[in-house]
């Protein structure tokens, strides 16, 4: 029985990986040397991966660090292909009823400071991530709620014991934020030292950071992956404005931008640079959501929320918005094409995904009338002051809602105040929100929809114990088919029956880069595959 399940999972994962991998270019033998210059459109809040969530930190800082395991750099599109980084061999098979994972740690790794890495360093790192002392932040603590204990019985062995078996554990280990820190650094300097200092075992050593200008790294000669890195160094150039990042690539002041550009920018670059430019594209593990404030009338009424989602023509939106914004794929709560994601046949049964938009909008009007708003009503859409894709999608959904008689104004805030409104003030009617993850781990990624007293990033201010129950069941269910069945019920309730909050479109990643940049393969997240040890310059 277990074998059949494993085979099914394997086949589904292989098909999924193959589908995503199709855009990856073929590679020749790597050349040594050169400095990679890339542009980064966001600032570095701190160097500490355990507390940050922005690509502004990941892109320039990730190359200084290693992880316990990582997404396979040669197949980053796969949601199930993980390889060892500081561990050796393959990903260990779980024992004791899938509740114990024993990792063997390599003995040939040294930190940039010269100190040898042992399992005690990895344990200290995961202790900081999973159970930090009071007053110490850890952004991804919740991802490891299944972990019972972490032990290092000897310098080469690390053991994780889980409270229950779950498929969400291994992907959580591969999160690109889980930088391995030195226990000696943590003991000597404290848990906040890494916010302003760098000492890792990554492919590159920290040289300098000129705030607002660039971060510079140079090759670490004792890097543990033999023959890597290929580059002599890199320079991550800060360029908050998209026009500047585009011009940097166009003028060859930078070779690549790892987050992604909108389609028009890709077309302009391609037109200007021809075959000097290579474009890699991929589905993106990010979606843009609409979150009604359940504490405000009339959004406390499920009929009104359903009307909002029914008015949105996602299928047409995908066709047109993909020409002007970094969104494309129509999907439900799970990353599209993942084995746990809804198929198109399943999606079209959910409110807001019906193929006949006229029927959908007629139903939306009926619901509004039934809820006491036959002539619609006015409200404000809260949005983030970032063009791609927030403001573009915001303008689009406002137009969609006009078609069922709703009058909507847009209230745009810069990122800081935007988050403050979502998290603290909560004084919005309906807000644009997003669910952006790194490693594809649907069992954890869909936690966005559970009750707000359990999910730290649910801003709709609702509690739904049924969803909480199904979420727990999914995470403890080892059978993929059963997981999938629960996921469908979960999705239907979250997006349709209760319409607590809803997905508009999934993002689509477009990375145009100079053709001389080789070895880097696009992943379904701008956080993944940024260690740069496999990148080389063919110049």
């Amino acid at each position, binding site marked *: 029985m277990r074998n059949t399940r494993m085979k099914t999972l394997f086949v589904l994962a292989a098909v999924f990986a193959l589908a995503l991998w199709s855009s990856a270019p073929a590679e020749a033998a790597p050349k040594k040397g050169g400095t990679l210059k890339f542009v980064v459109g966001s600032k570095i809040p701190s160097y500490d991966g355990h507390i940050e969530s922005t690509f502004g930190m990941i892109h320039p800082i990730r190359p200084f660090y290693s992880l316990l395991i990582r997404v396979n750099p040669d197949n980053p599109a796969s949601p199930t292909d993980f390889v060892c980084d500081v561990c050796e061999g393959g990903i260990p098979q779980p024992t004791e009823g899938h509740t114990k994972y024993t990792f063997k740690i390599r003995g040939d790794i040294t930190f940039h400071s010269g100190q040898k890495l042992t399992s005690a360093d990895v344990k200290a790192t995961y202790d900081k991530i999973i159970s930090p002392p009071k007053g110490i932040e850890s952004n991804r603590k919740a991802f490891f709620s299944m972990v019972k204990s972490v032990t290092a019985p000897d310098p080469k062995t690390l053991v994780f014991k889980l409270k229950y078996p779950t498929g969400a554990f291994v992907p959580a280990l591969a999160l690109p934020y889980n930088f391995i820190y030195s226990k000696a650094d943590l003991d000597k300097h404290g848990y906040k030292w890494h916010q302003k200092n760098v000492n890792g075992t990554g492919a590159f050593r920290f040289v300098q950071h000129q705030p607002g200008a660039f971060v510079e790294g140079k090759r670490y000669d004792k890097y543990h992956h033999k023959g890597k890195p290929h580059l002599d160094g890199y320079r991550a150039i800060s360029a908050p404005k998209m026009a500047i990042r585009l011009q940097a690539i166009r003028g060859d002041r930078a070779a690549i931008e790892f987050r992604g550009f909108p389609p028009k920018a890709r077309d302009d670059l391609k037109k200007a640079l021809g075959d000097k430019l290579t474009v890699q594209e991929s589905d993106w593990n990010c979606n843009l959501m609409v979150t009604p404030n359940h504490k405000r009338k009339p959004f406390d009424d499920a009929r009104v929320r359903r009307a909002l989602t029914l008015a949105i023509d996602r299928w047409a939106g995908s066709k047109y918005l993909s020409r002007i914004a970094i969104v494309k794929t129509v999907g439900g709560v799970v990353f599209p094409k993942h084995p746990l994601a809804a198929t198109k046949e399943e999606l079209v049964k959910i409110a807001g995904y019906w193929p006949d938009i006229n029927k959908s909008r007629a139903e939306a009007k009926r619901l509004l009338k039934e809820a006491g708003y036959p002539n619609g009503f006015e409200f404000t859409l809260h949005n983030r002051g970032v063009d791609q894709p927030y403001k573009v999608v915001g303008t689009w959904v406002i137009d969609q809602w006009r078609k069922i008689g709703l009058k909507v104004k847009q209230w745009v805030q*810069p990122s800081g105040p935007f988050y403050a409104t979502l998290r603290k003030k909560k004084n919005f009617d309906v807000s644009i929100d997003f669910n952006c993850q790194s490693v594809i781990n649907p069992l954890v990624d869909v936690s966005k929809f559970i009750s707000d007293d359990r999910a730290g990033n649910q801003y709709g201010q609702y509690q739904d114990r049924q969803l909480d129950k199904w979420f727990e069941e999914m995470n403890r269910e080892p059978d993929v088919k059963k997981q999938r069945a629960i996921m469908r019920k979960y999705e239907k309730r979250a997006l349709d029956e209760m319409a607590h909050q809803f997905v508009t479109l999934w993002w689509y990643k477009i990375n145009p880069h100079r053709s001389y940049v080789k070895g880097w393969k696009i992943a379904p997240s701008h956080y993944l595959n940024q260690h740069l040890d496999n990148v080389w310059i063919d110049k």
Partner: protein
Amino acid sequence: MASPSDLAVSEMDFDTLPERSWVDKIKDTARKKPLGAVSACAVMVMILLAVLANVITYYDPVQNAFDSMHVAPGAAHWFGTDQFGRDIFTRIVFGARTALFVGFSASILGSTAGLILGVGSAYFGGRVDLIFQRFMDIFISFPLIIMALSVVSIFGTGTQNVILAITIPLIPRCARVVRSSALAIREIPYVDAARALGFAHVRIIFRHMIPNVMAPYLIMLTSFLGQAILLEASLSYLGLGVQEPTPAWGLMLQGGAEEYAESAPWIPVFPGLAITAAVFAFNLFGDAVRDTLDPRLRSE
């Protein structure tokens, strides 16, 4: 020496002089100030566009029309369409409403508040004037855009807050100019007479002083219009003004300048031209009003 009968005759002659019609007066002013006349026409056209927007164009300024994305200027769409398929000419016409509404509101509010404060400061004089003018100095020391940005960052975005953001930095500029005229008015005996008659301060300020400083007030008001329109466009361009889908020139420029300057240049070019034309027209109009109302310039 003229006899009383001579005086009576000359008064009679004056009364019998033919009254010049307002058309003649306008023609005369236009001849003397051709630039002012052209700018006044441009301002009138802009006001007409704003008022008759629904009649002038039949496209919806906010409705997305994805079948017509990035259409180049032509017969169907004179100024082309934007990334959402919206007709740019229509959005410019409707955008004139936003520009004029914000421009007039901020200018009138800013100038009027400056008028009252400036006259009040001059009237009371002494310590009140001294302290008040130091506050004005602080406000004037900040460039308009910096001051407006600060106000928006405190109060947030949206049309009302943009008007407030533009109004606040205009107040001290008007107050300072008006105060200098009001200081002279304060020394004229009729103000003392009004005081001697026991009139309240408010009555003296509003009935006896403000009507006598209307010339600088109107000059400031008209010169502020262009600045206010430019500030509104600047704030919208920076994403701090009015928000999509409201048609506004700065916002249109912001949405198209970066991404489409190369592949669809009409998206940023036409809103840019609209802003330029409006500011130019209002500045010239303001200059013409100043020339007409300023006694020194009038005599020249």
